[in-house]
């Protein structure tokens, strides 16, 4: 660490879960304090149950240890001998002895329960986390902006491989030859959150095209790995070419692990993937998905790992750029159609989310630092830290970020865009080769400001308004368009209105492109959307003419014949599109006649236009629409996803046209013509999926057909028989591809054909009264599900579909509703997709049957399941399909549940940021922001009486609270939402005599602020890694760090005490016993050699007087003027080490 200021007296590091034995600074023992306010956000004795209170307390807790603000859980006092040396650049070395037992987060151990050695069991461990979570497995400055170079050593069992960041320098056996040590060096400055580790008995594959790239997978999967990775070099080439920059690290490693936290996570020079991305050459559907994941991972290597970010507010730049270049890759590999389809999909997603949930803000600025300046008051969580975000929001954030990058590209051109990226990269790579002293490393961090500056330098264009609109402001634009054609003036009168009042919307002012397809060709017009102008007159180029047969030129120069009989004789307009290039984040609801949509569908060559037309045509169930859709379906030049969309639209139209529909059921004859034998049209051809377009169509059509309904609202008999025949005659023997996805979709088709049973009330569903069709369906499902046990399909797609089908049968009352089947499939030990499908069914059952037992079962699984992804998934599924909501009364909603959920988010999920946010989300969905209605009134045992009570009674009336609840000292159950701030504060001071008086601002803090607010730069030359040499050793430990988090620190110098004018409380070494005993227990942990011997000596020194310290208070006083320091979070952390003896 280089010390940049005079009088550095404390060092703050991040650390969670770790048991820290001892800290030395430059060979001098250094006292330290370790406490983690996020362990328990609100105090357990608090009866507060409103989410507002929790959210602000949680934000305060996260802020209190935010490394970007210079905070941390671990505070090390620098021995006074080393203080005054700050003038010349002196180096402090910090040595930390620590161990990590049974980590709940940060590292994940997968140890299959089978016979054999650890290697034979394919036991492995890997690091994971959401955003900066490295502190879970070693003490560090867990910030993306603190760079340093790394030397990492891992001692593991000799049958294992340790894969980590940087170059593997050498592998050395230990003396007993049973273990080996992997030595890694990462010379490129890297932030701690970008460091990762994976250890397991991996099979190793050196990439045949790029020998510096190594792939790792679990035993037996090597053939899959070979196939799946055979494509990676092309992605490399692509990125290196567009960025005109070599891959920044000297090597790259991909590791495929089981029970992955997310599908893809990128770290410096390595990426960890889910093993479920691997596939063989027979699998069609997974191939593009896997390649996309690889491409994402690689894009993040450049932007995210190599180039890191200055602060959380700059995250959007990284996510934006990596998402954007990933999009370019998509365009190149999967084609422009796929790219535009993807952009539309992403745009629809973000628009839908923002309109529903409120805006997504890319670049949050917290000027005032006050709650009332909260830029996103509509959210039930704070966006100030990545760790307080809901996962859904974060996904949308990434989505919006890359869309905004695309908007910038639209403005300054792709060429400039790539130049900017190149500039960022080349600056960073120059900087990376410099020594730290040269002050160049900050070039490796991207900031919003720097990014915008380099855009304006490169392009010379001012994109300020664009940034202001989409980056510094949340929300999207909602347009409504309609038009009239004025024949006399030959003018198109276009009216574009905006809705900017409802939530998630904003006003747009500026240019908008409108494309008008006329008889004489296609014309682009740029209109200015201004404050008050709604109407825009657009002159038309062509006179309407009917009789002249002439080809009609399209946008792309193509000339086509059209049957113009459908159109309005007086108007030359074929169709109109608003913002065809999607250069605004918007939703457009445009009104034009049905024939115009049909022309647009048939003749517009842009897939986005075609998809828009398809969704618009749903509202026009006419024979003409039917014809247009059928034509598109048959056209094999048309993009397959458009054709898939047309299938579903056709089914909807057919249902609306039920009474007038003629001929066989929609799509049946088409399917017969395309996929059935010429000689016997009721038999499908043997599978041949060599043509992927028709493969996807063949999969989709039965699913869409099954949505058809007859007059009784049943699926027509011949459609059902048709699908059953498809299943019966399905023959994959001659196919070089697997048909598992196809068969799964046929089951989905059967599911789709189900309609609610005619229920005779209170009748128990039995086998005897099973409907004949349902019996056939059930027989197929039974057979499929049983066959799957004998010949499992890839990713068990068929089981997944069968489980969904069974749940639908139950829901429709054909078979008795019973969750036990799903519960058995949801158990740990099934393939993850199967588990998720089964859990989805249980969640659905819980909602429909209002079953407290199942809800409890689910929540137990959230707390106990080994797989983090499953825990997360359960909560998010419960959030999407909640058993009840705040709006309705439900027998499920009771005090015990509130307490349980509260406990879950308060302390039960401290090891996983994402899970905690999921729990918060669920709590919000179930109970809302205020105190849950099912709770009895809070015990107002305090002085606050009638006035208070009255206010509490109607919390829903005042959901938004004035003063932040953080004013309430943690364990006082004052419903702060209603207490006027001064009163609240006073009461608190009265009622709680904080043992330390921890709440009052002290004059001495000013002094302290000066040094601590300066950020110190840290360079960790050596991180002493605890080596998880033997995973078994970890597993068998049963020390729960989370239960006993505090490690005693000590206060050696009087000088330091003088700095703090707070009442100094002696701190007992109460943690010592626990510590030393655990130390002996954990003796087999391998500490770095030069720390080995000194533990015991150190313990003796702990009999110092410890003093309470107020590091957090001073900081937060400064940054957030609302008194975070008083927050329960920090309140607790203060208290725990300072109970007087």
């Amino acid at each position, binding site marked *: 660490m280089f010390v940049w200021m005079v009088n550095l007296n404390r060092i703050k590091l991040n650390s969670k879960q770790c048991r820290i034995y001892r800290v030395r600074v430059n060979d001098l023992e250094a006292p330290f304090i370790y406490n983690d306010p996020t362990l328990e956000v609100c105090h357990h004795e608090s009866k507060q149950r409103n989410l507002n209170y929790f959210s602000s307390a949680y934000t305060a807790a996260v802020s209190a240890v935010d490394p970007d603000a210079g905070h941390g859980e671990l505070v090390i006092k620098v021995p006074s001998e080393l203080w005054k040396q700050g003038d010349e650049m002196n180096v402090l070395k910090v040595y930390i002895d620590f161990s990590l037992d049974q980590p709940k987060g940060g590292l994940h151990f997968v140890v299959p329960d089978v016979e054999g050695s650890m290697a034979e069991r394919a036991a492995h461990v890997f690091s994971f986390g959401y955003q900066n979570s490295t502190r879970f497995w070693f003490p560090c400055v867990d910030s993306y902006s603190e760079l340093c170079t790394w030397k990492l050593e891992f001692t593991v069992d000799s049958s294992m491989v340790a894969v980590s960041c940087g170059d593997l320098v050498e592998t050395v056996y230990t003396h007993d030859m049973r273990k080996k040590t992997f030595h890694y060096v990462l010379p490129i400055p890297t932030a701690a959150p970008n460091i990762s580790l994976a250890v397991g008995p991996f099979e190793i594959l050196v990439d045949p095209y790029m020998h510096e790239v190594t792939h790792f997978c679990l035993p037996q999967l090597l053939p899959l790995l070979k196939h799946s990775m055979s494509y990676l070099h092309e992605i490399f080439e692509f990125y290196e070419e567009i960025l005109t920059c070599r891959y920044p690290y000297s090597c790259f490693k991909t590791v495929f692990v089981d029970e992955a936290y997310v599908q893809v996570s990128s770290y410096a020079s390595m990426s960890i993937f889910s093993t479920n991305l691997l596939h063989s050459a027979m699998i069609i559907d997974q191939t593009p998905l896997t390649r996309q994941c690889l491409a994402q991972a690689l894009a993040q290597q450049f932007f995210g790992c190599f180039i890191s970010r200055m602060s959380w507010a700059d995250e959007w730049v990284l996510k934006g750029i990596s998402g954007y270049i990933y999009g370019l890759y998509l365009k190149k590999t999967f084609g422009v159609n796929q790219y535009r389809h993807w952009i539309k999909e992403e745009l629809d997603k973000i628009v839908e989310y923002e309109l529903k949930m409120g805006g997504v803000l890319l670049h949050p600025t917290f000027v005032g630092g006050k709650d009332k300046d909260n830029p996103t008051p509509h959210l039930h969580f704070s966006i100030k830290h990545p760790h307080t975000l809901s996962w859904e929001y974060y996904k949308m954030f990434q989505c919006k970020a890359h869309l905004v990058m695309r908007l910038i590209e639209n403005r300054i051109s792709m060429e400039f865009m790539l130049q900017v990226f190149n500039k960022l990269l080349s600056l960073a790579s120059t900087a990376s080769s410099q020594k730290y002293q040269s002050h160049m490393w900050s070039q490796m961090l991207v900031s919003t400001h720097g990014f915008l500056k380099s855009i304006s330098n490169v392009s010379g264009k001012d994109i300020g308004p664009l940034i202001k609109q989409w980056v510094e402001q949340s929300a999207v634009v909602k347009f409504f368009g309609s038009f009239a054609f004025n024949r006399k003036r030959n003018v198109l009168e276009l009216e574009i209105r905006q809705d900017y009042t409802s939530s998630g919307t904003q006003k747009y002012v500026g240019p908008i492109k409108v494309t008008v397809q006329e008889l004489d060709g296609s014309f682009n017009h740029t209109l200015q959307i201004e404050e008050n102008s709604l109407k825009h007159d657009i002159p038309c180029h062509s006179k309407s003419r009917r009789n002249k047969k002439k080809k009609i030129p399209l946008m792309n120069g193509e000339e086509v014949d059209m049957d113009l009989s459908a159109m309005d004789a007086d108007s030359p307009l074929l169709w109109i599109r608003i913002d065809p290039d999607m250069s605004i984040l918007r939703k457009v609801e445009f009104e034009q006649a049905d024939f115009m949509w049909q022309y647009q569908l048939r003749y517009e060559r842009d897939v986005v236009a075609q998809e828009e037309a398809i969704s618009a045509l749903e509202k026009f169930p006419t024979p003409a629409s039917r014809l247009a859709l059928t034509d598109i379906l048959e056209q094999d030049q048309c993009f397959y996803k458009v054709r898939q969309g047309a299938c579903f639209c056709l089914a909807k139209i057919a249902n609306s046209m039920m009474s007038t529909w003629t001929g066989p059921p929609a799509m049946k004859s088409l399917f017969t013509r395309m996929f059935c034998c010429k000689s016997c049209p009721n038999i499908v051809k043997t599978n041949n999926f060599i043509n992927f377009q028709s493969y996807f169509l063949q999969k989709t059509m039965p699913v869409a057909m099954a949505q058809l309904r007859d007059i009784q609202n049943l699926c027509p008999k011949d459609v059902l028989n048709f699908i059953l025949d498809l299943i019966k*005659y399905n023959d994959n023997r001659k196919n070089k591809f697997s048909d598992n996805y196809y068969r799964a979709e046929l089951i989905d088709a059967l599911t789709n054909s189900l309609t609610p049973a005619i229920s005779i009330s209170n009748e128990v569903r039995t086998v005897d009264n099973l409907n004949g069709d349902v019996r056939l369906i059930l027989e197929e499902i039974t057979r499929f599900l049983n066959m799957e046990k004998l010949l499992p399909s890839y990713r068990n797609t068929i089981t997944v579909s069968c489980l969904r089908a069974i749940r639908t049968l139950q829901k429709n009352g054909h078979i*008795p509703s019973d969750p036990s089947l799903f519960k058995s499939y949801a158990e740990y030990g099934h393939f993850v997709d199967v588990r998720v499908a089964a859990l989805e069914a249980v969640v659905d059952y819980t909602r429909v049957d209002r079953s407290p037992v199942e809800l409890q079962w689910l929540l137990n699984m959230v707390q106990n399941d080994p797989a983090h992804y499953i825990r997360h998934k359960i909560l998010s599924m419960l959030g999407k399909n909640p058993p009840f909501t705040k709006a309705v009364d439900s027998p499920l909603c009771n005090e015990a549940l509130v307490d349980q959920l509260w406990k879950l988010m308060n302390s039960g999920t401290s090891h996983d940021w994402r899970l905690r946010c999921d729990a918060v989300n669920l709590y919000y969905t179930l109970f809302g922001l205020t105190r849950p209605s099912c709770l009895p009134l809070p015990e107002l045992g305090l002085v606050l009486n009638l006035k208070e009570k009255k206010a509490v009674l109607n919390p829903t009336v005042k959901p938004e609270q004035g003063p932040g609840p953080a004013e309430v000292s943690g364990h006082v159950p004052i419903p702060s939402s209603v207490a006027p701030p001064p009163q609240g504060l006073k009461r608190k001071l009265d009622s709680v005599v904080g043992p330390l008086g921890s709440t009052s601002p002290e004059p001495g803090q000013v002094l302290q602020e000066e040094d601590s607010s300066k950020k110190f730069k840290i360079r960790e030359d050596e991180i002493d890694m605890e080596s998880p040499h033997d995973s078994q050793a970890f597993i068998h430990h049963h020390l729960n760090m989370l239960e006993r988090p505090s490690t005693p620190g000590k206060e050696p110098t009087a000088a330091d005490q003088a700095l703090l004018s707070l009442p100094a409380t002696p701190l007992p070494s109460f943690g010592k016993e626990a510590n030393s005993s655990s130390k002996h227990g954990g003796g087999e942990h391998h500490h770095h050699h030069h720390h080995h011997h000194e533990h015991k000596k150190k313990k003796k020194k702990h009999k110092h007087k410890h003093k309470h310290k107020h590091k957090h208070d001073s900081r937060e006083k400064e940054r957030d003027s609302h008194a975070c320091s008083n927050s329960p979070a920090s309140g607790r952390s203060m208290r725990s080490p300072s109970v007087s003896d």
Partner: protein
Amino acid sequence: MADPAVMAGGFSAVVRSGGGKATSSPAENYQLARRRTLQVVVSSLLTECGFESAEKAAVETLTEMIQSYISEVGRCAKAYCEHTARITPTLSDTVVTLIEMGFNVDTLPVYAKRSQRMVITAPPVTNAPVIPKALIAGQKRTHPSHIPSHFPEFPDPHTYIKTPTFREPVSDYQVVREKAASQRRDVERALTRFMAKTGETQSLFKDDVTAFPLIAARPSSIPYLSALLPSELELQTLEETDSSEQDDQTDSENMPGNNLNDDPGADKENSVLPPGGVVPSVKASEENMIDNPYLRPVKKPKVRRKK
């Protein structure tokens, strides 16, 4: 008298449908009727002898005895007749047989004409069981002129000369597909039912747990293996379609595993040696060039660490 051929046919029918419970085939009916007649015969003989009642087991035993006696007579008679190159037994064959079996033939006419003889109704007419047709492939040869016509016919040519036996292949596509589909479905259903019967099951219905038996879901310790790896069946098809990939797969298999476990010296050799003794060409030289830190041998610990 029982026709031995018929008897034999009857028995074999019994054997074939052995274990068949209530179901009665025509062959079985026929056989049962004969047996019932024999029982009546035994009973009447017993009455003649002055018994008033008999235990069922005794009657059954006697019936069995009489049946074997008659069968033996038939068998012997046939043997005698065939011995003299005939195919239909004559009276003399039977007489010789009876004598051979130690029966005084002369007493037979007297016994038959006894006064207290009871008349037994003829056995009920049942259709004789259909004898499965022998395989016929090609034309049977007629006797050449020097063989008298009463000699047995030539057996089917496939029994003594090479005969191309083919049936007109079913060329109807629909039928073939139909057949393949139903065959596969039957096999699958039978197999899954069997698995369901023999193992644990789960049921969708509470009232009838056997209605749609589902093989119980059993968690596996490494679930991703079965979910990701192609099944052997699929691998076979893959092999058929494409064998080039397989070659690739085998040759690098020895790289990682050995590096991990074995001692470093052996490893070094392994990674340098071209796999499988294939003549080292481009590939081998490539392999040699690969310098990947994960393929390097593990170093021995340095002694200096011990101070």
